[in-house]
């Protein structure tokens, strides 16, 4: 289990995350909902060691990784699909994937690469092309593939559907589900609540740096506050 326990993070005087606790479990998708500026990205970055933590703990299967250097967090089995995908645009698709497997052994890398190509045939077709020339959806697939290459037990995803056409959003989120089904714990931040709820197992809602709701999808769909905040008034009237 990836456990985030009473996490506090601030930017100077701005206290962006105030006592957030949540967890990701192998084989399950934990959906994190929250308005703009709620502190979702900050939470994920703090887990990865990209942002220093004021207090609180982050544990991976019992091992404390709070405040560790990013590359050590990755070695501990956690990887992040960053907000906006951030593929290495000038590098080839295959180079991007190989970088994802940077900390694994050469044979593992070769094996996983074949698996990822099997999962995303488009990446295989475009393996020698520059990653920056892929479409948005394809780049998201590459970002997923890159995270999978690390053989992490937990994959954090920051708004994977952002900026994608509605038709592609479904595919991307289904892919997130498949990743979880392969035994990986997925912690997914998603603004598109409706689409997110369709693939999620558990839901955490954050507002202004604090957790407002934790529960399973059914409970979330029954929660009026969540409905109002994330699914719109129309959902409420149903």
């Amino acid at each position, binding site marked *: 289990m990836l456990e985030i326990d009473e996490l506090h993070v601030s930017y100077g005087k701005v206290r962006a995350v105030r006592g957030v606790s949540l967890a990701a479990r192998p084989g399950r998708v934990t959906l994190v909902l929250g308005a703009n500026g709620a502190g979702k990205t900050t939470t994920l970055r703090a887990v*990865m060691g*990209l942002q220093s933590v004021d207090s609180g703990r982050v544990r991976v299967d019992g091992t404390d990784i709070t405040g560790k*250097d*990013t*590359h050590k967090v*990755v*070695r501990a089995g956690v*990887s*992040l699909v*960053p907000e906006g995908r*951030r593929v*290495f*645009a*000038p*590098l080839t698709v295959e*180079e991007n994937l*190989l*970088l*994802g497997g*940077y*900390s694994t052994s050469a044979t593992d890398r070769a094996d996983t690469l074949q698996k990822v190509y099997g999962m995303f045939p488009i990446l295989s077709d475009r393996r020698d092309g520059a990653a920056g020339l892929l479409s948005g959806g394809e780049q998201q697939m590459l970002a997923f593939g*890159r995270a999978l290459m*690390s053989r992490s037990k937990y994959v954090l995803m920051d708004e994977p559907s952002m900026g994608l056409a509605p038709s592609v959003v479904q595919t991307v989120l289904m892919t997130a589900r498949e990743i979880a089904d392969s035994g990986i714990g997925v912690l997914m931040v998603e603004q598109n609540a409706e689409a997110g709820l369709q693939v999620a197992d558990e839901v955490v809602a954050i507002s202004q740096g604090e957790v407002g709701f934790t529960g399973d999808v059914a409970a979330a769909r029954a929660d009026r506050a969540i409905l109002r905040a994330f699914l719109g008034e129309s959902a409420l009237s149903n």
Partner: protein
Amino acid sequence: MQELINAVSLGCIYMLFAMGMSLVWGTLDVLNFAHGSIFMFSAFSGFYLMQETGNSLPLAALLLVGVVVGALMSVLAYQLVLRPILRRAKDKDSAERQILIGGIGLAGIPVAIVQIQTLSNPFSFRAGSFEVASYDFLGARISNIQIVIWVVGVLLGTAVVLWLRRSRSGLALRSIGVDSEVASLMGIDQGRLGVAAMAVAGGMAGLSGALLCVSFGALTAESGDVLLLKAFAIIILGGVGSMLGTIIGAFFLAGAETLLIANTSGTWVDAVSFGLLFLVLLVRPQGILGRQEVRRT
């Protein structure tokens, strides 16, 4: 023919010097203004040891001293000054500015030491342990030291290109150059790779310092400065971050300079090479082989 031989030798030296600078600039965002003084101080260390040992060091030992001293200085500069600056800086722009200033400050220290030690006189590896000799080669003259420069240049140039292109750590370095934060998300330890890159860069600077000191006969405390400016032109010409571009830039500048000297009054050499630099900045700001998106200017 003679011009060609001279241009290739000069190009090799420019290349060895500029490649290291380009490497760390393109990957670690370190535009190291101390590169020139590292180059000079490595050669000076060879000179110093030479004096201490009664002029008995063979050429290979001098080159080795150059590499080791250069690598050490470069790594120290990175660990003690440049890396802390990179870490602490708020954003990329202020990081670049501070790195520049830090580098210029650092550069002053070895220069001052050597100025004091030599009273600003030229220093050179005294003759005795090896002789510079020259031979006829296809109707022109080529010297033994030029042959060494060619061999070292070709070997190292290829090695660095292959390293960056083919190896896992080379790929990792290139990814740092594209997006260092995401690179760390790939599990890349930037501290270690940074040290490795700085060591390679410094080692190459030191090697070119020792080679140049033999080939040109002498260096002064300020010799690094002139070369630094040329390397700057070469890297801009080739495109920041492109090793092949840097190599092409080095030989292009060496060729242009040699041709200019052969065909015009030599006074124009600097004016034309830097004119060329402006032209590139105007017409093709990313350099000959640079990435399309320009990240730095």
